[in-house]
């Protein structure tokens, strides 16, 4: 599920957080909010930002060798 969470403090400070997006789509899909509300002061990227949709998942399996 893709969500955009906007926290607006009583002092008028705003923080926008995106969840469930993969790759750079979080930036483009939340840009409209930044345009509506004002100037972007800072941005912090999270590991999901660097993932790509066609990235192959590697599954590691461990065989029980003892017992």
């Amino acid at each position, binding site marked *: 599920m893709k969500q955009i969470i*906007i926290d607006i403090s009583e002092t008028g400070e705003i923080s926008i957080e995106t969840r*469930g997006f993969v790759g750079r789509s979080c930036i483009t899909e939340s840009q409209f909010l930044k345009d509506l509300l004002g100037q972007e002061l800072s941005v912090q*990227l999270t590991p999901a930002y660097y993932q790509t949709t066609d990235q192959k998942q590697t599954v590691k399996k461990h065989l029980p060798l003892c017992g």
Partner: protein
Amino acid sequence: MSHVAKIELEILDLEILKGACQRLNLEFLENQRSYRWYGRYVGDTPLPDGFTAEDLGKCNHAIRVPSAAYEIGVVHRQGKYHLLWDSWHSGGLERVLGPGAGRLKQAYAIERVTQEARLKGYRLCEKQVNNSVQLVLTV
């Protein structure tokens, strides 16, 4: 999570500002060219960026806050709306709207996001978290 951004609010839409006033039970005074304040700049607080002491007291619209003696001036400059007010405690604005008229800015941001979510057909959930309001948009 994909990213977190901090935003500095700019007031760009007058209709949304009117909606924010309604939300807080403030009275928007369209085309009122002056707002009530101490009447003289005494230098106890810094002037807003780009404004001089001569600009104080003049506005394009004003906002009346019930139970406050002073008013807020709304000044339109270069496509943005600036809020001017006198924070002197006897004026009563800070008591109602918080430091920097933060509650009015908060109400503006809520109104702005709510309207846009409606237009885009996004599901919106609003909840109070301590002194903040959290809006969750499901895309």
